[in-house]
């Protein structure tokens, strides 16, 4: 017994005692510390990090110290600033009091966004944000200047949500660039952004953007509360935030929309939705999201509306195909072969003659193989891309059928399922249907098409119980709202869509004055004939 306890106790061991503890910036007011003591305090807080610079310099008659992280600060600009402002000053000037500091900062850094700090904790935060902090001897306030090195990817074409016609820019990792992309599209003083810092360790800046006056106040307040309530050590992607703020996490369906297209974000914001932009992620969250949003692409608004409506129907159909095609195959072959026309049934049976497995094993085998291929396609290094595609096409497609492991019709079914799954404008929703497909296959092997229908009813019941920030997920289909049908299964012409979706209950529901279709100019004399 003791022996077991010993074995078990290995895992239960407390943390190895160590005298290395994470440093915390202390809330000490600057006027309680001397110039040297402050320097010691800062160096102690940052420890042995190599990139902290704390240089003492002379400024006129007085002495100052400049703190910054050289890896985060734009050193070129810093050098320029130091050269122009500090060294060119005359010998007479001195900074000995808070008033002197105020005067200096107003005179020299008036437009560059300076901050005055009087606490060690704020100093540390400032340094971490990539600002530089200047402290003068005998002055109880510090000057913080922004010289952030904002190097990053430049704006490129979107990689996941491409369009044929439409804007070709996409969000990048840098949050200010992203906000700039949205601001460029909506030149309106009502476009507001609120800043949050999320992540106890990472302190990532998160911006919540909305159109003031359009967005519903309740939804806005709810989003605010949820963002404030986040208590997590780190976030790196908008997906992290999404998981923390959605209404229900026990679901495979995405309850917040993510997009990397600024035009899509602008469109949604003008409808009365809220965008959440996270620093370091090119994917912007849009809430509240309803199911039909995942079937719309920004391009629907950029092409002929007949075509858009047709394409939308294709998307819904391909959703169903991607969902039930393999399970229907299993169900029909196992339980209801009489549903197939006789000639088709004969050819299917003839093909399956050599296949040693029951239909469900065949389908699962192929579907899992396909999922493996797909995952390999995403993760593999670009250099081996060709190998995977050759192996995939040859082995899975042809050789497997020739070897008699699977039937030819199975290859067709896996292929159409896969292609149908790629139709979605939004990747997150495609993933949901991938998971449900496997449930359907297994149930179809037990209960046939009856089981498939049962799972679909189950799925719809689950979907209708979901809410995204209080908005029913299936709106405007269930509950059925007739005014909102102009932009659901079909897209009405853009001049006829005068109202914002009413399920979002926007403050101002009218988009613009109601107007008719554009028409050619009236020919003179035609009206006079009567």
């Amino acid at each position, binding site marked *: 017994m003791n022996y077991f306890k010993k074995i078990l106790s290995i895992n239960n061991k407390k943390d190895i005692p160590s005298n290395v503890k994470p440093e915390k910036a202390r809330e000490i007011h600057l006027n309680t510390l001397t110039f040297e003591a402050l320097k010691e305090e800062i160096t102690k807080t940052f420890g042995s990090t190599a990139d902290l610079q704390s240089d003492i310099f002379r400024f006129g008659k007085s002495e100052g110290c400049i703190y910054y992280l050289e890896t985060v600060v734009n050193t070129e600009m810093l050098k320029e600033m130091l050269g122009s402002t500090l060294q060119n000053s005359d010998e007479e000037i001195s900074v000995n009091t808070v008033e002197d500091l105020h005067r200096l900062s107003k005179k020299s850094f008036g437009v560059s966004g300076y901050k005055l700090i009087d606490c060690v904790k704020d100093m540390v935060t400032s340094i971490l944000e990539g600002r530089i902090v200047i402290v003068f001897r005998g002055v109880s306030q510090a000057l913080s200047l922004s010289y952030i090195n904002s190097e990053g990817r430049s704006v490129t074409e979107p990689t996941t949500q491409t369009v044929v016609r439409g804007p070709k820019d996409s969000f990048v990792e840098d949050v200010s660039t992203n906000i700039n992309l949205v601001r460029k599209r909506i030149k309106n003083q009502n476009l507001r952004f609120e800043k949050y810092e999320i992540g106890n360790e990472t302190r990532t800046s998160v911006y919540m953007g909305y159109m003031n006056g359009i967005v519903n106040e309740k939804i806005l307040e709810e989003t605010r509360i949820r963002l404030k309530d986040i208590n997590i050590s780190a976030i790196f992607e908008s997906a992290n935030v999404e998981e923390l703020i959605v209404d229900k996490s026990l679901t495979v369906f995405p309850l917040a929309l993510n997009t990397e297209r600024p035009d899509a974000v602008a469109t949604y914001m003008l409808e009365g939705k809220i965008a959440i932009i996270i620093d370091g992620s090119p994917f912007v969250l849009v809430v509240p999201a309803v199911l039909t949003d995942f079937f719309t692409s920004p391009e629907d608004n950029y092409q002929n509306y007949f075509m858009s409506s047709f394409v939308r129907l294709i998307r819904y159909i391909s959703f169903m195909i991607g969902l039930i095609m393999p399970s229907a195959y299993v169900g029909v072959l196992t339980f209801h072969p009489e*549903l197939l026309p006789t000639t088709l049934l004969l050819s299917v049976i003839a093909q399956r003659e050599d296949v040693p497995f029951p239909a469900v094993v065949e389908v699962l085998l192929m579907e899992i193989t396909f999922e493996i291929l797909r995952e390999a396609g995403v993760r593999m290094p670009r250099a081996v891309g060709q190998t995977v595609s050759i192996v995939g096409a040859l082995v899975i497609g042809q050789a497997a059928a020739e070897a008699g492991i699977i039937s030819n019709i199975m290859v067709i079914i896996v292929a159409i399922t896969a292609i149908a799954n790629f139709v979605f404008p939004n990747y997150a929703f495609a993933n949901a249907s991938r998971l449900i497909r496997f449930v359907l296959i297994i149930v179809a092997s037990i209960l046939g098409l*009856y089981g498939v229908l*049962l799972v679909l*009813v189950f799925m719809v019941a*689950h979907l209708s119980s979901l809410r995204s920030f209080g908005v029913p997920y299936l709106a405007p289909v269930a509950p059925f709202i007739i005014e909102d049908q102009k932009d659901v299964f079909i897209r009405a012409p853009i001049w006829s869509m005068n109202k914002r979706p009413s399920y979002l209950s926007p403050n101002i529901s009218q988009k613009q004055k109601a107007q008719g279709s554009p028409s050619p100019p009236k020919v003179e004399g035609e009206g006079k004939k009567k």
Partner: protein
Amino acid sequence: MLTEKLSLTQIFTLIINFLLGSSVVIGIGMEAKQDAWIVVLISMFLGLIIMSFYFYLMSLHPGKTLYEIFEYCFSRKIAIVFTLIYSIYFLYLSCRVIRDFGELISIAILPVTPIEFTILSLMMVIGYILYLGIEVLGRTSEIFTPYTFVFILLLLLLLYGGERINLNNIQPIFVEKKLIVDSIPSILAFPYGELVAFTVVLANVTNFKMSRRICLISVAIASIILMAAVFLIVACLGENTALRTNFPLLSAARLVSIGEFLERIDALVVYVMMLGILIKSSVFLYGSLKGLEYIFKLPFRYFAMPLACITTLFSIFISVDFSDHLIEGLHVVIFLLHIPLDYGIPIFITFVVLLKKWRHDRKGLTGVKV
């Protein structure tokens, strides 16, 4: 907690599916032979009257369920007795409806799968839906109902296009009047009398005033669909076969064959039936759950899954085989349960409510005078 509300479209689809429910599975008014569709037509008007009666009962106390009206009439103790009776009645009806469908599945679709398993799987879905609440039931029915309309229309078109409709089968019209009159009472009990379950559901409607019109329209539309179904059955199969088959509409659908490609579309009919059964059974079970909620003063969600399991069990136990089940349903239950519980007690309750209101009003008047 959010109060659950049903929109008008949802109540509309619920009533339609409820009436189609098992009636479309086993067929109604078949005793009247070739005039079965006339029976349905006549009973449609009776159905409208019945629905307006239930609605009148509800409108005496808008927003209150039948059980709360019991409490208004009597003390809570007596109300509990009545509630228990209705709760068990609804549970029993739910069992019957599910059994209808279980038999259909095990005879026509999955002959090898044990009926217990098919019923259990369906009940699990129903239990889940009811656990999520009546709102979810309404939305689910809202999403699936359009397909019901499309499929019935398609069936009509395909049977017509395949030249399967033989109008000679429904002639002579209106000859055996005695048969027509005889078969009307059973229709009044099933399916129209069963609308009593909506005295529980209607308490959750958003727009109570408008819902009266919606309820009547939906009863009319459902009756017209039923009439079309019965008409199709008799016209395609002939009165003899129609009376003998267990699932007449399914047999009619199996006749469809167009160009040797469009055949065996009975899956569509099974879909219509399944949706109807799902809604009907859920509404009954909801009525039962609400009764338990009233008795035990616990949220009805607690009972959803256990009661779904009990329904599964008793749907197997209530009868030995399908013929036993049908005889019990068409000859015993009607007089023993349907007539007193669908009409007897509600009419009695209405009188009590009116009496109480009248006395209350008089008291109020005298009170003002003093």
